[in-house]
């Protein structure tokens, strides 16, 4: 039993077990929320089917030679950009976003898969020898690679996925060892952009903060003034861009900032989601017995609002188990990232971790009312084939890296 012993020493059973329990919670919640809705009654079976497919893919990826990951970089990125353009032209619109490619029995969501491809491209760029992260040109190229898919996804529009990319970009830079000044250069313009949507006082406040940081960093006058100019420009760019949008698009963006400005969509769902979770109590109302869930107060509960079902029907007890399982998953992946000596593979692992964490943070934050309503699924729990497949592909890559790390050492 030498082989078995060897396998088990490299296969993280705790991580895999935690994911499996999350899947069980997800399937129970999907079943409960779809059995009384005629149009989606077969979602449970569809999810089981997607899970089977995902597990097969997971073990294939797990077994492949690790060197293969690096060879995927150029064409993986190329294919995913092509798909993101294709979806804007041929895509199918569901829930206001043109984000799906209709493949007959299943709808493919390219944004899900381009996350992995972009991550690989970014990690391999950062791994190149002599990359100085304080060099504006290096950062510029890095952002170009990372933000091109984001621009395409914003056109769908899919804000949730765009945020995931931003988080991943920052995490990778941080992991690669960017200085606090570099972090400031990257982080300031987007924050200024966001603040400019809220009004003039927020813009002024943002400028004061930017100026304060620039004084603290004490760089030469050329760098300081050009950074100030970039931040000014980004604020005006947003103002200008926002003004040329149609009223319909403006409304959509404003409802991200203030959900209550759109009581039909975001606001209503946020209120109902909190009632569902809060009314669950310690032990929950029981499987298939949540009134908020069964009376369909929240549309499409089975996808982005799936945690409401768990909160209402399994209570605080079930909710804490689920978020603890996520904690286990995250810390185990972080452990693998820290132990992997190869820089590229370590960056890939931490990038995958950031994708999972941001999904978790936005999704749970949204249903408990801490974060505005942004459509993004809860990994391994929400209904959705594309999301499940891409999550298992990423998990497979992590397990593959974990398996090979001793060899590389």
């Amino acid at each position, binding site marked *: 039993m030498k082989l078995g012993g060897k396998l088990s020493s490299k296969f993280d059973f705790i991580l895999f077990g935690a994911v499996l329990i999350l899947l069980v919670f997800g399937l129970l919640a999907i079943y409960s929320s779809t059995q009384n809705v*005629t149009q989606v009654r077969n979602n449970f079976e569809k999810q089981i089917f997607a899970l089977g497919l995902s597990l097969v893919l997971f073990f294939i990826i797990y077994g492949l030679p690790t060197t293969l990951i690096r060879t995927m970089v150029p064409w993986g990125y190329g294919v995913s950009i092509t798909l993101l353009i294709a979806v804007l032209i041929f895509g199918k619109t569901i829930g206001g976003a043109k984000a799906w490619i209709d493949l007959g029995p299943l709808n493919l969501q390219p944004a899900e898969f381009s996350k992995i491809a972009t991550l690989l491209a970014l990690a391999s760029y950062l791994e190149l020898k002599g990359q100085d992260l304080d060099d504006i040109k290096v950062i510029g190229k890095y952002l170009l690679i990372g933000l091109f898919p984001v621009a395409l996804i914003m056109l769908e529009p899919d804000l949730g996925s765009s945020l995931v990319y931003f988080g991943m970009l920052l*995490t990778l830079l941080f992991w690669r060892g960017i200085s606090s000044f570099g972090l400031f250069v990257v982080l300031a313009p987007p924050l200024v952009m966001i603040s400019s949507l809220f009004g003039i006082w927020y813009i002024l406040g943002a400028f004061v903060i930017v100026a304060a940081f620039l004084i603290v960093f004490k760089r030469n006058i050329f760098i300081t003034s050009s950074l100030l100019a970039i931040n000014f420009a980004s604020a005006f760019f947003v103002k200008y861009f926002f003004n040329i949008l149609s009223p319909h698009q403006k409304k959509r963006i404003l409802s991200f900032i203030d959900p209550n400005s759109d009581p039909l969509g975001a606001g*209503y769902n946020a209120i*109902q989601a909190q*009632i569902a*979770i809060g009314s*669950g109590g310690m032990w929950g109302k029981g499987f298939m017995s949540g009134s908020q869930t069964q009376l369909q107060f929240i549309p499409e509960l089975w996808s982005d609002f799936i945690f409401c079902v768990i909160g209402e029907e399994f209570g605080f007890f079930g*909710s804490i188990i689920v*978020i603890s399982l996520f904690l286990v998953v995250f810390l185990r992946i972080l452990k693998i990232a*820290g132990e992997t000596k190869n820089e590229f593979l370590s960056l890939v692992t931490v990038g995958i971790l950031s994708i999972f964490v941001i999904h978790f943070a936005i999704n749970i934050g949204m249903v408990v009312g801490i974060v505005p309503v942004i459509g993004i699924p809860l990994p391994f729990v929400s209904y959705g084939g594309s999301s499940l497949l891409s999550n298992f592909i990423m998990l497979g890559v992590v397990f593959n890296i974990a398996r090979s790390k001793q060899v590389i050492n």
Partner: protein
Amino acid sequence: MTQLSSVRKSVLAGIILGLFLIYGLKLFSMQIVFNRKFEDKSTDNSIKAIEQMPLRGVFYDRNLKLLVQNVPSYTVRITPSEYDTLTNPMLEALLQLPKDTISHIMQKHKKYGKYQPVKIKKGASFEEIGWLEENSERFPGVDYIIEIKRGYTNTFSAAHVLGYLKETNENDLKKDSFYTLGDNLGMNGIEKSYEKELRGEKGFNYILVNATRRKIGRYKDGTVDLASIKGKDLVLSLDSGAQATAEQVMHGRSGAIIAIEPSSGEILAFTSAPDYDLSKFSDITPKEYMRDLISNPLKPQFNRATQSTHSPGSTFKVLVALCGLEVGAINENSTIYCPGSYTYGNRTFKCHGSHGATTVYRALEGSCNVFFYKLIFEIGVDRLNEFAKKFKIGTKTGIDLLEESKGLIPSSAYYEKVYGNNWPRGILVSVGIGQGEVSMSPLQLAFMTALVANNGKSFTPHLVKGYLDEKRKFVPYKFDEVITGVSDRNIRIIKKGMWLVVNGGGGTAKNIRSSEVVIAGKTGTVQNVHGRNHSLFVGFAPYDNPKIAIAVLFENAGYGSEVAAPVAEEVILAYLRSTGDIKPKPKEDKPKKDKKTNDTLDLITAIEENR
């Protein structure tokens, strides 16, 4: 490096643990500390979003006369989760429903779940609703909604143009997430092809409901409600006068009449006979009516104007002659000799007489067959096929109705497929006179005529011109231009030939020469193995400045000149009088016409005065 990376690892671990703590505490506060508050909201005071159906857009004719409107109608519903089935007999008696209807309907709707309301009666009377209101305590789970149904205010039917609505079923819901069960959906005609414009956008009212899901008030006094947006009010291109006349002259026959404004492609009149009564479809359609419709051998629901294809007969000679001129097979002065018959191989094809040396003018005027028997061999079937496509024959015209036939103009490839490589060339003889394999829809005939009338160009034929916006301002829809590229010179020759048909000494339709307006046209008579000949006429008027192009097809009616041509004249005159292009003459001046025309005239004057 390693030391630094362990710092970073701790930072990330710290962020993750922080997230876990914040979310854990938030859940603890919601589910344990403030659980009562949320539980109360959940059981006593839930907000429910109620869908508000938008009003469906209505139809106007080209002169903004209302054709189709919305009429309110009461529908009684049951929500199974709250309903007590013991009250079935009482409710049935109250609503005058046959015994056991309710349990029957509820059984059928069981699969939709017990929270989905079930409609048990449509078109309930005001008294029934009043009674229900008074006794609402005795009937938990029973409510009523006001639904709209279609009301028809026009003096004509236009059933195939307007179309009717049906209730959505599970399949419709899967195809389009806009709908919920029981919504109305355009089934055919414009109701279907313009469904997305007509249906509008749904709104939502937020209400507070208590533990038994009874309404106890409006959420925030309705200030956050979202109003529904009414569908677009469509302006049709139809002219009520021309349409009414066309339907009157069609009455009791089978066939189709289509009239088009040549310069715009706008359809002025569109009939397919026999037709059916749209008002029978606005509530629940009576079973007997539906059975009669389906068993009628003439198929009233079939749209003859766009879906049926017939041999165009001699009306097709217009296109063959124009094609001959365009490809240079003939010119204005060239003649083809007609000895009275034409022999190809061992078969002899007859003409209506011996026309002698015949120019293209005389060939059209007297509908000489031999001229076209010979001409088609000069042109060749593939060149004709290509040419016809420019006139949208053998291809769809693109009219704004969803059901349309392409028709057929054969090509050598087609013949090879059907008869093999050695297909008998003699088949072409009948193609020259619009018989044999050639087939077209009445719409294609009318559009071909419109293109000729407007010197080879027009716009894709259409029934809807545009819509009225919120300020009741007319907003036109854009339609593609159709350009055949035919030379003005050749068009003029063909138009002159069509003028001779009506106004020449040997014209086949000289019986419809009118003193009021100069009409040009072409007759057609198609032999029918199943019965009497089909009678056809295509034409346009006024000759100098065409305002209307028309195609008339009467099935099993006789000669084109005898039946179809006078009818076409009647519709042309009715329309041109209503637009003021010709002055209505004193009634004594038209002793030849029967009473029908006078009625039409009165009707049109009435409409004029109405405006």
